[in-house]
């Protein structure tokens, strides 16, 4: 069983890596398709068989649950990093459902995506997604789930911007990724809080049996833990107040929208809640919070679905509403019904989205055509209200509950505004006008207020909490640098450099705290420095051939530099601490060693990682996506296959070496 579980994780990973390597080679579309499909067919079919066997083994077996450790990295007995697997009823069911749907989509794609320039890219993304999802489903602890969570987020970003040349797709990809990144902080925080609370243990096996231990934790801490688990659920499953991004994310090919936003990715949040039930159920009042979030989402999303006049948006909102129902069921302690509901919803929405193209024919040909349908819409439930209330409801629904403007205005925009102002101050130039000469006074406006308050509050808290003055200075500098990186408008290199410098200052602040962190810091330092140098090199290479005028406008360089774009993505992921990169592990070690310095320290650390993540992925999408350039025909600008392969090796080497060094 152990090896089967390992296979379930490894097969999609192998597929991703193999296809990723192949994508550096260039050949005719027909050969690419044939080769890709052969690999994918073999790996995914074996994964299907493997997972079906797993399911039946589980059905037959007496074991209720199964847990084991795959990897354990021990660093001088201070820190251990582990990847664990936990297999129970829920994982087996969800795994089977996910495997069936993904396999169907994969078979479907061969014909569906035939002759599309992104054929190979699509299969890389879908393999990556499947790997991430399997990681989430099979993960034995919160940190493994986090890894999977990030992988799903990344593949989602790549998939929304599948038609990279459309600015709308690129923008929606950014929005979705920002929501992910902001909410994922919660999951990372929960890993550390549980570290903090019960000494390194965040495994589900232990959580499930730790009722007494849980009960002994102070209520405020339990609340913090539960909320930080709830946050990523709201982001990934598009629950209130993050409902808006999901329907808009349906920019990719229809069938991939079906798998991500109709069926599988959207339910990952529900799955996480099922996994962490003991934690949030033991928190008084938490069930009520979940119940009401579910209820509000269900009502709001149903209302939005009622007025959507395009088929995909309607299905998307209907799906969100049903996830809200699942949250309600969970809060009422019916995990099994919620789970059944989830599986049913997954199949139904996949099917609905796949046949969404035939809505014209079903409408016109069946049941007496359009007129009868329009009569049916008279019976929709908002009609019970008076005309005035209806108008209000309609406006609310058509604006999707006003959630996007609110979140943008009060969560995302303040950060970006502050970043803009700081950058402007840094360069002594106007942040609004394009001309770099004038210095305008920085206006305090209402939108910036929360961010500034937060800034002062944190700095104040830092001064209080951590006596060490230097430490505080370093951390504040790090935040400022991260914001500079976000606000940088003209030079991609500078943006990366700022991000990098902010990590340096993070490192300094930990070194100031304790001199013992050298092992961790080595991993951390080599990790992000290696990736940063690697990325800077690539950006430099591109700028040799094409000027990048502004990094706050779309440049659309993907067409010229497909190979560079692949490598640069790796480089950026290396910098922002994507799970399993050495930066990530280094960061974990650093934090782990400094956990006694308290929660504020940790939050700021994560905040910097979040900002840098947003800033670099945004940079990536501005560089590569958003428009089609005039290609000068016959001029090859991209890296050659050989050199890109060498660079890839170099990158892997940096990461491995830094781990080994530790």
């Amino acid at each position, binding site marked *: 069983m152990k090896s089967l579980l390992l296979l379930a994780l490894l097969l999609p990973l192998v597929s991703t890596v193999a296809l990723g390597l192949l994508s550096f080679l260039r050949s005719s579309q027909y050969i690419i398709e044939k080769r890709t499909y052969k690999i994918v067919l073999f790996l995914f079919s074996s994964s299907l068989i493997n997972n079906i066997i797993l399911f039946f083994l589980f059905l037959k077996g007496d074991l209720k649950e199964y847990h084991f450790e795959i990897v354990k990295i021990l660093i001088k007995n201070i820190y251990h990093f582990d990847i664990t697997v936990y297999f129970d009823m829920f994982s087996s069911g969800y795994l089977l459902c996910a495997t*069936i749907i993904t396999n*169907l989509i994969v*078979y479907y*794609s*061969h014909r*569906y995506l*035939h*002759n*599309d320039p992104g054929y190979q890219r699509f299969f890389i993304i879908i393999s990556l997604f499947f790997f991430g999802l399997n990681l989430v489903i099979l993960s034995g602890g919160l940190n493994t789930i986090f890894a999977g969570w990030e992988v799903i987020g990344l593949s989602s970003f790549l998939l929304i911007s599948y*038609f990279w040349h459309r600015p*709308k*797709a690129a923008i929606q990809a950014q929005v979705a990724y920002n929501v992910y990144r902001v909410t994922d902080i919660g999951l990372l925080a929960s890993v550390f809080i549980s570290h903090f609370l019960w000494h390194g243990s965040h495994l589900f096996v232990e959580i499930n049996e730790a009722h007494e231990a849980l009960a002994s934790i102070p209520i405020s801490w339990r609340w913090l833990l539960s909320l930080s688990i709830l946050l990523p659920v709201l982001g990934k499953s598009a629950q209130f107040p993050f409902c808006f991004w999901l329907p808009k994310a*349906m920019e*990719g*090919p229809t069938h991939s929208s079906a798998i991500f936003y109709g069926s599988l990715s959207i339910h990952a949040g529900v799955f996480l809640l099922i996994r962490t039930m003991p934690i949030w159920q033991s928190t008084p009042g938490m069930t009520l919070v979940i119940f009401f979030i579910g209820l509000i989402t269900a009502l709001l999303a149903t209302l939005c*679905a*009622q*007025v*959507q*006049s*395009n*088929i*995909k948006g309607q299905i998307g909102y*209907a799906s969100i509403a049903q996830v809200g129902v699942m949250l309600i069921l969970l809060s009422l302690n019916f995990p099994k019904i919620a789970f059944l*509901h989830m599986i*049913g*919803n997954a*199949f139904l929405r996949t*099917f*609905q989205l*796949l*046949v*969404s*193209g*035939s809505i*014209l*024919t079903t*409408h*016109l040909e*069946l*049941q*007496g*055509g*359009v007129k009868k349908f*329009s009569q049916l*819409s008279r019976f*929709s*439930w*908002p009609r019970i209200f008076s005309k005035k209330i*209806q108008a*209000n409801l*309609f*406006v609310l629904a*058509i*604006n999707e509950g*006003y959630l996007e403007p609110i979140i943008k205005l009060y969560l995302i925009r303040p950060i970006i505004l502050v970043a803009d102002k700081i950058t402007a101050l840094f360069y002594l130039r106007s942040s609004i006008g394009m001309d770099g000469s004038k210095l305008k006074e920085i206006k305090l406006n209402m939108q910036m207020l929360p961010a500034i308050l937060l800034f002062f509050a944190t700095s104040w808290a830092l001064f209080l909490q951590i006596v060490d003055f230097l430490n505080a200075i370093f951390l504040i500098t790090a935040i400022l640098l991260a914001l500079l990186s976000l606000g940088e408008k003209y030079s991609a290199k500078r943006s990366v450099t700022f991000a990098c410098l902010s990590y340096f200052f993070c490192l300094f602040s930990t070194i100031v705290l304790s001199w013992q962190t050298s092992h961790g810091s080595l991993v951390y330092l080599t990790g992000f420095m290696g990736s940063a140098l690697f990325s800077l090199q690539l950006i430099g290479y591109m700028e040799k051939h094409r000027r990048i005028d502004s990094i706050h406008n779309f440049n659309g360089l993907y067409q010229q530099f497909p190979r560079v774009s692949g490598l640069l993505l790796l480089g950026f992921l290396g910098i922002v601490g994507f799970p399993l990169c050495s930066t990530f592990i280094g960061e974990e070690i650093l934090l782990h060693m400094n956990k006694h310095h308290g929660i504020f320290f940790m939050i700021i650390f994560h905040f910097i990682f979040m900002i840098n993540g947003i800033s670099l992925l945004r940079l990536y999408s501005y560089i590569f996506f958003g428009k089609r350039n*005039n290609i*000068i*025909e*016959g001029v090859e600008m991209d890296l050659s296959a050989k050199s890109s392969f060498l660079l890839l090796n170099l990158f892997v080497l940096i990461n491995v070496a830094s781990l080994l060094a530790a």
Partner: protein
Amino acid sequence: MQPIQYNMLDLNKAFLQVRKFLPVQGPIKDFIHLNILEKFMNEPFHDAIKTAGKAFNAHRYLSFSYYREKFNKNEIKIDDILYILNKHYPNKNNEEINILLENLLNYRPKTIKNENAFPIRSSLFKKINANLDHIVNPILFRLLSSYLDQGVSLWHFLDRSSFAKAVEELASSSKIPLAYFISNKELAKDLNENIDEKIISTFKKIFDSEDYFFDFLKESLVVHRGWSGMVDIVEKRKKSLTLECNINLKEFFLVKILFEWQAIKYFKKNFLPLTINEIEINNINNDYENELLMIWHESMETNYYKKIFAILSQKPKLEKEKFKYQAIFCIDDRECSFRRILEWESADVETFGTAGFFGIDTYLFSQKKGLVEKICPVPIEPEHIISQRQDDDDSYLTSMANFITRHGANSFLLGFLSIHTLGHLSLFGLLASFSHPQRLLFSKRKNQKMPTYINFIRDEKEPKIFGKLFGYSIDEMAERVFRTLNGIDLTCDFKELIFFIGHGSSSMNNPHYAAYDCGACSGRPGRVSARVISSMANHPKVREKLKEKGINIPHTTVFIPAYHDTCTDEIEYYDIDNLTKEQFESFDKFKNTIKNVQKKNAFERCKKFILAKNVTLETALNEVKLRSRAIFEPRPELGHQLNALLVVGRRERTYKLNLEHRSFLQSYNPLKDQDGNVLLSLLSAAIPVCGGINLDYFFSRIDPSVYGSGSKLSHNVTSLVGVGHGLDDDLRTGLPIQMSELHDPIRLLVVVEQEIPMLLSVIKKNPNVFLWVKNFWVRLAALDPYSDKLVMINEEMLA
């Protein structure tokens, strides 16, 4: 520059002029192939491409690499290029020609598309430091698509009587702002005022001079061509939507400009009107590149035309006496290969080609659906209507399932229930759609359903329904049959069995399904027309009348309607109950021949698909059936791809000739048409229909993202009127990439078998058709009826 004062009259004029830049495509359920640049047809072809290319920021021709690859494959020869160069630059000396040649092969173009397509708008965006398109369009599109919605949304709230009024009512009765940058009170007040005055006064708030009014109007509407065009079409033809909506372009623009004004105020508190100095217009000059491309393009066309000339000058042998059957097909290029293979397969069949509505100019009223559809070519405005009654063949269960998946599953409580029932069951639906796509419950489409009874004989009791004459009288029937038979020169030598074969196409999960159906039937299957014309021709009284007109149909002759599904290559026959035994035996023989033809035709078509290269003769039918029924196939059939030729002439000229799926074929006998009247009526229908198909594919192929509708993979059906990419997107007009990628954009070559003077005089009689020819939107060639001389009609001849 002299400032232009915009008064009310000019405003109307501006709106009249701006319509030129809006697309011509109507709601997608009635997808009809039209010339995408139909509104530019007053200009010569290349000039029109240039004007449109500048206005829409579109490619004018394909890329250099495409043509150069063709050159390397020897599909464009050096002779062709030289011929075109001599034609266009008769005065240039050898050296200059050589430079041009060198550039054609090696020139590296820098700019093909303008980076900034909408200079005035982007100057405005720069000033307020926000992209209004990203801010205003989502809410504007949502309101408009809700307003026009034909049944996607479950709750339709906006009143369909006037768009501006609906928005005004919404603004005045809702406390919640329409969008985060909008103040409802102000909007309601503004919308209450006179539309014309409000447009101008709002414009004046944004710009300080009126010089740019027209350009701003043009840019504002063209930036989302799809929706603007839809508004334009609904304004002109209210009937084009099933649930009628009142909307006009002016009020749509008013709402847009008011929204934008509020957004401007929101993003820049003290906004001063934009002055002329702030408007940056940086037009790149890419005329030289496009001139080179034009030469390439014409060379490619020349190469193809030369090939056709060579093929058509062969002399096929055709012996009329041997024939035992006659089959009348649609003019459609997809029947071209079918007819050829039929002739290869059997020497017994004589084939004809004519427009697939077979002269039946009528609306069709489907009693069960309550739907009235036009089933004749678009330019014809029919006066008749016929009705069809359908047996209840979609089962109660299917209806229920559809109702629940549509209305139930997307609502709240019903959704909960349906997930626990249908949700889990849909797993089997999913599995079935992959393992047995041919048999899926949901793949049932209109084409599989046979209307059991068509009523087209005028009943004195109800002469009129829907304001149209119901059915046809005997005289009218005789006239239609006469015209059709006379047009294709089938006036004597009637064989025992004569088939009228209409065509259509069945495909699943395909919003563009209407584009595959019969173009001459307004994008509907040609089944009804074939059945009606056959019954008319079989009617004894009609035959008597025909005798008076000189067409003597022997009583042993039977007309049999049939229907060819061009996607699956299946053929259905109708109304065969009354055949005598001998006729039935003969019919069986014909059916067997056709079976082989189906196989071979499917096999030939499969070869064009890369993924179907491995099929054998036996599996070909299965493959095309799969393509038709599978929900995961974006390319159900070739469609009209590769079309490039229309031959109007006797079948002797093209009998058994392999024209590679490229040709529309219209039967016509020049020897019997002394005064050219028959030719006139044939060309009046054939050139706009075939030319429209040709140019729809042409432009969709040239620039799929502007003229075409981009990739089919992310299409999202919006309001049942069109498709967009993802949410809140503009409607995409034209054909998707998957439908046009195999097409070689070549202007239609119309070869007419007639003497040149006669042809020219006929062409000039119809100004509309003459426009096509004069401005070279199609190329015309005359095939001498008495020899093999084929002459291209050039400018001098037309002058």
